[in-house]
């Protein structure tokens, strides 16, 4: 982890304590998680106690205190997707990646999460990889989508 890069992010937000969440979001999107050293640095520079940073970092699901994979796979298991076969999509992804929801593989390639609705129920079952939505999924199509990621 590059501490200068963390400093750059902090400076981009003018080192204001009120920008804490924005700073954390930037670090999260760059590293895919919030390393301890980064949080220490943020606390020091923004003059925010670590207990507060920890509170915020554990409160929001957007933040992670453990390393996440390069690609974040979200599978919708909301009602509409569920009845359209989200379970089969989930099984396919679990088989292809070898991880269960909430986990990250050893190569830090994928992190898998289930979500409760992505808001595009007409496209169900829905799979989202790195923010890109893949609709009307089938197990075969799911495997094809995953092949596109390195």
């Amino acid at each position, binding site marked *: 982890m590059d501490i200068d890069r963390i400093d750059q992010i902090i400076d981009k937000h003018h080192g204001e304590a009120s920008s804490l969440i924005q700073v954390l979001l930037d670090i999260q999107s760059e590293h895919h998680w919030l390393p301890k050293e980064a949080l220490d640095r943020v606390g020091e520079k923004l003059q925010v106690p*670590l*207990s507060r940073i920890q*509170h915020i970092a554990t409160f929001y699901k957007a933040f992670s205190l453990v390393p996440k994979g390069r690609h974040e796979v979200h599978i919708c298991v909301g009602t509409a997707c569920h009845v359209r076969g989200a379970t089969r999509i989930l099984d396919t992804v679990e088989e292809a990646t070898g991880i269960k929801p909430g986990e990250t593989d050893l190569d830090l390639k994928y992190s898998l999460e289930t979500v409760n609705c992505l808001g595009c129920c007409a496209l169900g079952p829905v799979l989202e990889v790195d923010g890109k939505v893949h609709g009307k999924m089938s197990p075969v199509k799911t495997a094809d989508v995953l092949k596109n990621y390195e």
Partner: protein
Amino acid sequence: MSEILLQIDGKEVKATEGMTVLAAAQSAEIAIPTLCHHEKLEPFGACRICIVEVEVRGWTKLVVSCVYPVEENIIVRTRSEKIDRIRKTILELLLAHAPDSPELQALAGEYGADKDRFEKEASFCIHCGLCVRYCAEVTKKNAIGFVDRGIRKEISFIPEIASKECNDCKECFPLCPTSYLQAAFVLTQALAFPYPQQSYGDC
């Protein structure tokens, strides 16, 4: 600071602007039960046990007295059938988390709360935030904070800070209504900064 007149339990009470209903009641020696309130700390409104009925222009509403500012001519009732019932339920819910807390048991006796009404889910912490707020606002050490949210919310010491500050302070210990804080500290200490050659007495 203008003076405000209000009525609490039929008694005329004088208060100043910006005071809370709880503070006004306390100044008139009217007891309202509290769990998360502490005179040195900012109001938090976490435990809801200080709930009271407030009548404003004929309309009655339920408010939490520790965060509700006084208003002119309001009528406050600190005990009523409804209030007692709400406090009883709050206590029963809290007792599911901390069934052996003496503070909760004393209140439970007063309000007739049954500690076995809800299935036990002994997390021991009732999230009053006294330790967290005391550490942040009074001692300004920030050695302890909340983590996570909702049903998974809990208190957590920051080992780096706690190892330096807590052994000589421990001012938050007597504040905890359930003794969970002490347990959390001992656990953190055992995991993160064990005492060298700690003496355990002659037991």
